[in-house]
């Protein structure tokens, strides 16, 4: 069915037809016609952010917590350039978002017009795909294709650049139809490779599942199938930062997160395993450490929907290109049909070995009665919030790693963090996006004070829409991770890694009409956290923590998994893979 309407109306109509209920945006000259159409309707809610970067991160938060694409609407020129960080963040973490940008009218493109930027040129390397729409008749089709591309295959950010005259002009609107797009990624894995993996599962003595964000991107069915496979085989499972929640932290085969600041037992299991089953992860350098010493004796299988992820960093023996849910379903089918075999005795022995490693208790830390240790703050936060319908966002740095280590995630889509790009300033706007999608949930942004200040203007957004987002700031008055690296790698020369002019966060909260809570005594911490949870509105929780705490365990860059550092005092030099030598 086609209908005649203006380009601006088409944009809003296409969003409705794509099931969009929330748009994060900021108006400007080149998107005024679209804003006019938004004014004239009530189906789509527009959230006015305070900076375009905030709009894109909020859309990411919305997308990660719902599995649906997030939408941001910004103006031309500076509006578009401010969106670049969010687009790149979404590209590296494979988050489906659709960013709509206004553009100067087509007849002025190339004339260095006011607020003109080559938006498709600038965003070409940081989007999965982008379009400049030059005539109104092709606008509706492009909008629908944008949603298709953002959400199919490996998800990612897309951008549609819409000149102002295209918004004003009238054209034919076409409704979304079953995609005629040429972009149709393969979902089913190759059955021969799947059978080879099943054969490996049957005979492995020391297996490990290594899962990533791809499991969550594949949808809830993938997490269910993963749980079924893990529990049926009894194989231990670890996950990247991006994949937390796909398998529950309370599950008996759970090893905890792996990687640079991952758990000792997880990293040693990766190093010593004989079969590594990578499901939807990408052998990121935060995971592998030194590549030539990465899990030297294992057969490696890699399930990924993106063929370019296969053999990009690590050579794998069993590559399976396909959607995680589809492939897991086939693996289970084949494995069951062949009699559900595993090498029970040897796997049990391997589990015993892992239990030995677990006894190292790598997350142990020295607590204090005088100052709040950041680890303690997170342990208490976990204890006091775990029964809630809870979503956690983070900024980037030490607090992010501690949050990943000390908080437990039982379900997918509950954990929003900037993994690939490591964007400081991500968490606060993301928490706004999550709260919009889940108005009654407890949404907490675990932050460092430095990251948080990068997008603190979004307090205005939280206040305006009365979003009860809890900003849990672990305030060490330092750029903690930078400081840690300077201590370890740069001779303790703390070059510009602290701020001498931090705001009074309580007063800052009050200035925005929100609640501020200051806590510096471990004895007060529980009450203060309860006060934060029970307050119906945005809260800035200024948690003054130990200033020089380092984040452990740590695989120093360029080291192998079995060269982890466990803590300040006890680990000097190379750690042997045999757990008994340790600590």
């Amino acid at each position, binding site marked *: 069915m086609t209908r005649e309407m203006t380009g601006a109306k088409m944009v809003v109509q296409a969003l409705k037809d794509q099931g969009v209920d929330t748009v994060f945006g900021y108006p400007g000259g080149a998107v005024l016609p679209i804003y006019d159409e938004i004014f004239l309707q009530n189906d789509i809610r527009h959230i006015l952010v305070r900076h375009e970067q905030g709009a894109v991160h909020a859309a990411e938060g919305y997308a990660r917590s719902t599995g649906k694409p997030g939408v941001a609407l910004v103006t031309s020129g500076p509006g578009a350039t401010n969106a670049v960080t969010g687009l790149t963040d979404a590209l590296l973490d494979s988050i489906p978002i659709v960013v709509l940008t206004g553009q100067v009218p087509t007849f002025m493109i190339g004339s260095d017009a006011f607020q003109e930027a080559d938006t498709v040129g600038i965003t070409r390397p940081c989007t999965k795909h982008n379009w400049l729409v030059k005539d109104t008749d092709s606008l509706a089709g492009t909008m629908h294709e944008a949603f298709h591309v953002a959400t199919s295959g490996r998800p990612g950010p897309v951008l549609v650049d819409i000149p102002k005259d295209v918004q004003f002009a009238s054209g034919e609107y076409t409704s979304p139809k079953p995609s005629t797009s040429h972009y149709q990624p393969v979902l089913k894995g190759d059955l021969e490779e799947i059978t080879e993996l099943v054969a490996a599962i049957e005979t492995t003595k020391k297996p490990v599942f290594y899962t990533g964000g791809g499991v969550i991107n594949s949808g809830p069915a993938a997490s269910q199938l993963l749980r079924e496979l893990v529990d049926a085989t009894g194989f231990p499972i670890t996950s990247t930062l991006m994949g937390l929640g796909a398998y529950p932290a309370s599950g008996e085969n759970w090893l905890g997160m792996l990687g640079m600041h991952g758990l000792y037992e997880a990293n040693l299991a990766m190093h010593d395993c004989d079969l590594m089953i990578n499901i939807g992860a990408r052998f990121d350098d935060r995971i592998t450490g030194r590549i*030539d010493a990465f899990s030297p004796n294992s057969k490696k299988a890699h399930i990924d929907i*993106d063929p370019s992820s296969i053999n990009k960093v690590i050579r794998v023996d069993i590559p399976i290109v396909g959607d995680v849910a589809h492939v897991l379903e086939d693996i289970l089918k084949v494995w069951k049909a062949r009699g559900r075999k595993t090498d029970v005795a040897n796997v049990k022995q391997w589990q015993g070995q892992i239990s030995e490693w677990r006894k190292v208790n790598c997350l142990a830390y020295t607590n204090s009665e005088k100052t709040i240790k950041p680890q303690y703050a997170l342990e208490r936060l976990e204890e006091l919030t775990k029964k809630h319908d809870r979503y956690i966002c983070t900024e980037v740095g030490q607090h992010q790693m501690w949050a990943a280590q000390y908080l437990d995630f039982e379900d997918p889509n509950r954990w929003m963090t900037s993994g690939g790009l490591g964007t400081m300033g991500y968490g606060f706007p993301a928490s706004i996006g999550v709260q919009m999608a889940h108005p009654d949930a407890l949404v907490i942004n675990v932050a460092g004070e430095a990251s948080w200040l990068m997008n603190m203007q979004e307090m205005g957004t939280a206040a305006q829409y009365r979003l009860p987002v809890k900003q849990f700031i672990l305030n060490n008055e330092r750029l903690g991770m930078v400081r840690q690296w300077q*201590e370890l790698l740069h001779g303790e020369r703390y070059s510009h890694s602290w701020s001498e002019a931090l705001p009074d966060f309580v007063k800052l909260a009050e200035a925005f009409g929100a609640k501020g809570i200051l806590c510096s005594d471990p004895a007060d911490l529980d009450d203060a956290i309860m006060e934060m949870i029970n307050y119906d509105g945005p809260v800035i929780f200024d948690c003054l923590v130990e200033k020089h705490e380092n984040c452990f365990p740590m695989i120093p860059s*360029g080291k192998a998994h079995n060269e982890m*550092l466990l803590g300040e005092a006890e680990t000097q030099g190379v750690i042997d893979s045999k757990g008994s030598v340790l600590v």
Partner: protein
Amino acid sequence: MSALHIKKGSTRHSAYNLRPTFSDVQERHTIAVLVENEPGVLARVIGLFSGRGYNIESLTVAEVDHTGHLSRITIVTTGTPQVIEQIKAQLGRIVSVRDVHDLTVEGDSVERELAIIKVVGEGDKRVEALRLADIFRANVVDSTLNSFIFEITGAPDKIDAFADLMRPLGLVEIARTGVAALLRGE
């Protein structure tokens, strides 16, 4: 404290000394990429090569299907086997790319390049240039009393050989199209 045993003040320790373990033999591959001929598609392909640090030795592009709006980009590139595989996979995930063919591994292929070469000279050199052009089956497409423009078609190394011979005979300018290539047979 320094848990890494790095001396205070040392700057030798980069945090990024990660080295892969793949083969480091450089290979030359001709890759044909069929793309939707839409604005910016060439920038997407070239941006991929520059953004990820791959080489382009030669690149040709033209619309080959006017009704379907499809263009064929022929790229000659060098890299280790792992890099070549990555290039193909990365090209394949560009949304406007329809098809990627590695002509170097998919079978025998025919590679042709066209060059036009201006040679300025008089007397014996002029005669010698004309004789060599005949041997290489280059055509004279323009002539003045003291210059020729030759047109030559062939594999890139044939054109290299001809250009090398023309240099002492007065080669002043050369324009090359880059490689166009097709698989042999059906």
